[in-house]
């Protein structure tokens, strides 16, 4: 992108959906382009679906759906000669996710004859380098997490750093038409191009937060994408689905969505402050926002995400319909856990702290557990037993030991063996490794780009 003589009056951002691979109508993109989009931005990831995706470095979305979305976006960006920025590629933003999306882009680029320069930005971090930072006192915990130790970093299968807008801007300045970023803040993906073109940080970051989930900021969250135009005094936002609307309430409420604090959001380089923002309806479906601020912070910090294996799991499932058991289901569950614990100890000779089990009574109190207030006697209960062991063999062995209990365990007072309703044969499924997010920490950095690696590819390089 050649720099012009000064910043433009405004920058238009097209967000086709909240997630690459979620699907959107071709009209969404056509409409955004006709409104004068200067950039297309879309998020490719999230931690919201759990630690599995970072743990394994695999995507939640399917290749087919991502290819379909990318084909539409690449064609539109190429035709309009505007950049396309994809953040948190492959769900977790691990290097494998960036390469996965890049492989799909390269194939489309070749098949459709698109002359596009593609930048890959890798965000994965080596534990040993972070341990050196830890020893220098440059890694800090975010609440509610405690201080970090080297062992926790070494346990992680993958660690990513969340980039701000700077590595994306660096790629755009280097001539990228398509930027495929590893883990990035959801906002940086939408903000990067506008900041590069000289839009003020307050409105730009606030707009980026409002539009990052696509239609979530509209009256119909299931609707397609949104369009924001940022200028030197504020921004306006409207849905790309003509039947949806942005209202001052729907836009302001977006600051609540999946945030701890609705007034401030921390970015690597500072804090978005929206307590003084004013939301004004321009017409029945467009909202103008002014008064947002961005407070730069020092030092610049990069947030880390890491997923470690916690064990190997097996899940078993059975159904109970017998009213006699259901009338005393708490007692049955307690008896189950006691019996299983004894059997594991005597038959498998495993120490009680080397394995774990979670017995869930779906239809009774599985979801809320002890927070459930006096649940009624259920009509039927789905019993899920989730077992965790140090390896898969152990988890499977414990589950096989539990199998006759899930089929026949009576109440302690019963003088016969009931039989319950297994849903499948076998009644258990091995889940493989289970993961947990173990990092909620930030690293102080000297430069916003130092933790990220940029790689440019021209057509034909792939």
């Amino acid at each position: 992108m050649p720099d012009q003589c000064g910043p433009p009056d405004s920058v238009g951002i097209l967000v086709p959906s909240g997630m690459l691979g979620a699907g959107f109508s071709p009209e969404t993109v056509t409409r955004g382009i006709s409104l004068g989009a200067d950039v297309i931005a879309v998020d490719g990831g999230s931690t919201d679906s759990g630690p599995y995706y970072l743990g394994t470095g695999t995507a939640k979305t399917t290749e087919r759906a991502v290819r379909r979305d990318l084909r539409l976006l690449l064609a539109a960006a190429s035709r309009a000669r505007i950049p396309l920025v994809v953040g948190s590629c492959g769900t977790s933003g691990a290097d494998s996710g960036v390469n996965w999306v890049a492989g799909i882009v390269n194939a489309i680029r070749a098949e459709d004859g698109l002359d596009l320069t593609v930048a890959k930005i890798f965000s994965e971090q080596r534990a040993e380098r972070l341990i050196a930072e830890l020893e220098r006192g440059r890694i800090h915990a975010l609440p509610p997490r405690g201080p970090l130790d080297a062992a926790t970093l070494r346990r992680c299968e993958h660690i990513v750093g969340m980039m701000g807008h700077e590595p994306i801007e660096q790629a755009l300045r280097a001539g990228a038409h398509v930027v495929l970023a590893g883990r990035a803040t959801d906002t940086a993906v939408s903000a990067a191009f506008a900041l590069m073109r000289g839009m003020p940080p307050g409105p730009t970051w606030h707009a980026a937060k409002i539009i990052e989930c696509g239609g979530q900021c509209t009256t119909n969250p299931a609707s397609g994408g949104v369009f924001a135009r940022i200028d030197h005094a504020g921004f306006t936002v409207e849905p790309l689905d003509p039947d949806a609307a942005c209202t001052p309430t729907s836009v302001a409420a977006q600051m609540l969505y999946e945030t701890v604090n609705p007034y401030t959001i921390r970015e690597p380089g500072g804090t978005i402050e929206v307590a003084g923002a004013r939301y004004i309806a321009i017409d029945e479906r467009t909202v103008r926002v002014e008064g947002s601020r961005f407070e730069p912070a020092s030092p610049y910090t990069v947030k880390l995400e890491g997923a470690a294996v916690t064990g190997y799991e097996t899940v078993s499932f059975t159904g109970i319909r017998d009213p006699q058991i259901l009338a005393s289901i708490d007692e049955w569950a307690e008896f189950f856990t006691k019996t299983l614990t004894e059997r594991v100890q005597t038959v498998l000779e495993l120490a009680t702290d080397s394995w774990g089990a979670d017995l869930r009574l779906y239809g009774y109190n599985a979801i809320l557990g002890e927070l459930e207030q006096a649940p009624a006697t259920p009509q039927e209960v789905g019993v899920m037993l989730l077992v965790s062991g140090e390896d898969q063999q152990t988890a499977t062995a414990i589950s096989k030991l539990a199998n006759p209990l899930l089929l026949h365990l009576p109440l302690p007072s019963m003088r016969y063996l009931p039989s319950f309703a297994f849903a499948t044969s076998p009644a258990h499924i091995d889940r493989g490794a289970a993961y947990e997010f173990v990092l909620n920490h930030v690293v102080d950095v000297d430069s916003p780009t130092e933790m990220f690696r940029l790689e440019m590819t021209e057509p034909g390089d792939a």
Partner: protein
Amino acid sequence: MPDRGDAPRTLGELALEVRSKNAGPFWMTLEAFMPDAETYCIADALITAELISELYHVSSASLEIFRLPELHVIKVSFPRPVVQGSLHDRDMHAGQHHVPLASVVVP
């Protein structure tokens, strides 16, 4: 006494929506969206640190409560009692944890 037979009884019935969600893997956030200023005031008085602490078994010191009269919203955030995706996490997105709050009977 006016007949209150049809009057809303729980916060969930009074609200446009009561919802819960993860705010990252380590936090949970609850929101009560009220339809107007009058019902907002009822929710505002009802939702206290003591109430949330009792309903969710979390220490009141760990709570962050935001009152947004302009949106008629009360928002409460607190650290997840079980980390997302761990063996004992039964609600991966914390999407069903609004129910204890929504079930509170409005005085």
